[in-house]
């Protein structure tokens, strides 16, 4: 149980919450306006609902930009996002206005690492094609290399960004008898020792890796990082996995790479936009596996993320240090 000190605190919650988090929120004494509508909340809805609010509890959509902060007015003290990423929030503007921002790192690491492994295996083992075969009742053509995929053992793994999630993925891969784990990061990480990880520069990672896994945050440096020249530097047999943010990848260049044998296959849990339009070219490719951003989608983790986000929110309203501040 946590208590909000100011009884008139008004908060806007842009999605319905799971039971435990909802109880925590309502028992704290805040006046919460919760959007129950199942449809995606629009920017207009937020602009209207946030006027005069002291706190905002939100998810990845819509982006919290200057316009929304202006619409909120001077009352707004704290924003709590139910995610580890915060690229959808204008952090600089929040800093200027002394608005604290909370997020949910750590709690979703295992769920995302698991999903990344699932996506990697689904891509490497051609599960999308396997399902097409099952659904069509196609008889196996009796060729010994039919539907044969790529094995992980004895391969070189390249992890782009060895943060919590990157390290968790590396730990899981370490048990798969891989040959080497390479990684890039802003600086060398001591935790890399746990997985015999080798710190290399980006080009070396691209050239040497059989499997490239993107686990970095979306920043101005990583936006569009995977473009034509990156794919050209990769092995033709390489498998590319992205569970970070869609914008780290130039999707036209990825399409080109997948259809001209520059890389073997790609698995994406994140795209630009989300959802991807029905007729998007990447969807048609057998060697492109796309999940609808399921990274943290486990019941356990979502519950914990929401509960953490509520705690961040109440702390922000109380002017106390946030359990998980962005800055």
């Amino acid at each position: 149980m946590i208590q909000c000190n100011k009884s008139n605190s008004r908060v806007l919650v842009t999605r319905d919450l799971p039971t435990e988090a909802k109880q925590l929120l309502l028992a704290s004494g805040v006046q919460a306006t919760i959007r129950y509508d199942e449809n995606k909340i629009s920017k207009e809805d937020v602009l209207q609902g946030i006027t005069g609010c002291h706190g905002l509890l939100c998810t990845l959509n819509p982006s919290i930009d200057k316009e929304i902060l202006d619409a909120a007015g001077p009352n707004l003290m704290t924003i709590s996002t139910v995610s580890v990423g915060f690229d959808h929030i204008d952090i600089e503007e929040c800093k200027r206005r002394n608005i604290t921002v909370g997020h949910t790192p750590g709690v979703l690491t295992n769920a995302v690492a698991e999903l990344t492994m699932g996506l990697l295996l689904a891509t490497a083992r051609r599960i999308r094609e396997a399902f097409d075969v099952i659904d069509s009742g196609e008889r196996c053509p009796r060729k010994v290399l039919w539907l044969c995929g790529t094995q992980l053992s004895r391969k070189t793994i390249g992890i782009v960004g060895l943060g919590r999630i990157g390290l968790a993925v590396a730990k899981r891969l370490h048990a798969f008898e891989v040959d080497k784990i390479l990684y890039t990061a802003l600086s060398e990480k001591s935790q890399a020792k746990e997985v015999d990880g080798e710190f290399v520069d980006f080009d070396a990672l691209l050239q040497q890796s059989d499997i490239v896994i993107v686990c970095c945050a979306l920043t101005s440096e990583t936006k569009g990082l995977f473009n034509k020249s990156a794919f050209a530097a990769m092995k033709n047999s390489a498998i590319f996995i992205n569970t970070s943010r869609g914008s780290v990848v130039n999707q036209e260049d990825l399409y080109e790479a997948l259809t001209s044998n520059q890389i073997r296959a790609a698995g994406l849990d994140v795209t630009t936009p989300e959802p991807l339009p029905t007729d998007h070219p990447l969807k048609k490719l057998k060697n492109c596996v796309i999940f609808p951003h399921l990274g943290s989608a486990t019941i356990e983790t979502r519950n914990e993320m929401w509960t953490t986000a509520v705690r961040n929110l109440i702390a922000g309203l109380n002017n106390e240090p946030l359990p998980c501040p962005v800055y």
Partner: protein
Amino acid sequence: MAKRIYIATDLPDGVKQKFLNLSSEVKIKDGDGIVSKEQLLENVVGCHALVCTFKDTVDVDVLNAAGPQLKVICTISVGYDHIDVAECKKRNIMIGHTPGVLSDAVAELTIGLLLTTTRRLAEGLDAVKRGEWGPFSLMWLCGTQLSGRTIGIVGLGKIGLAIAERLVPFGVGRIIYSGRTEKSEASKFNGTFVDFTELLQESDIVIICCALTPETKGLFNQETFSKMKNTSIMINISRGPVVNQDDLYTALTTGQIQAAGLDVTTPEPFPTDHPLMKLKNCVIFPHIGSATVDTRTEMIMRSFYNLQAGLKGERLPFSVY
């Protein structure tokens, strides 16, 4: 006299010549399609050696059709339930198979199948395909996590062991196993030997890794499912007949167990109108356990070594008995 060899499968270009070099009378199946019983009976006549896959039933009819000169059968698989081993022993026919080499590929596929089941990835792929992404409900398509779960492995052979070792860094809870005897390798992952009933009652995730034998045929039936947790997930990568599919359907549709993932079914291929195909909580793969280029090539090479030894009358490097 040249040794006659029939190879009831195609071979990748890189290794074909090795087999062709073994004798002047080597016939390799080409083209698509299943080798029918009739075709097999026709082609084994007068053979000294037969190279086959697990899809070829090598029974008394086939052995008789071949004739008394048949010395060696090499199956490109670890399982040999498709071969009449007792009859081969009587006739002094050596049987080679390919154990060990496919453990990594099968273990990887098993983890992939497990995650596809627990994280509802088939539904995810489908949602994207249909453009039904959304509705942005926070609990949409939420699966269950492996962290802290009790894993039960039925049959701790090489494959069961490879799976257990890979599951450890996923933060799973206990890993328990059942089988005929305790295995010292279980210490590699702190595994505990339990009886079958205890495994069923305690496990959140049950992974079937045992061979198909008269004892394990139909092992997973109504009684078995009734002992499992309602929240449990069953994964079968061994052989279809270990599971009674009608009982599985009942278990999945009455909440006896939560979900199932199958890489093996009865029959294969699985009919598209089979009731299990319609269930969202039943994931089915088309038997791709060992389907990686690396492993299939290695399996073929081991069969080659078995064949080479068998033709010379030497002990096979990877013999069934």
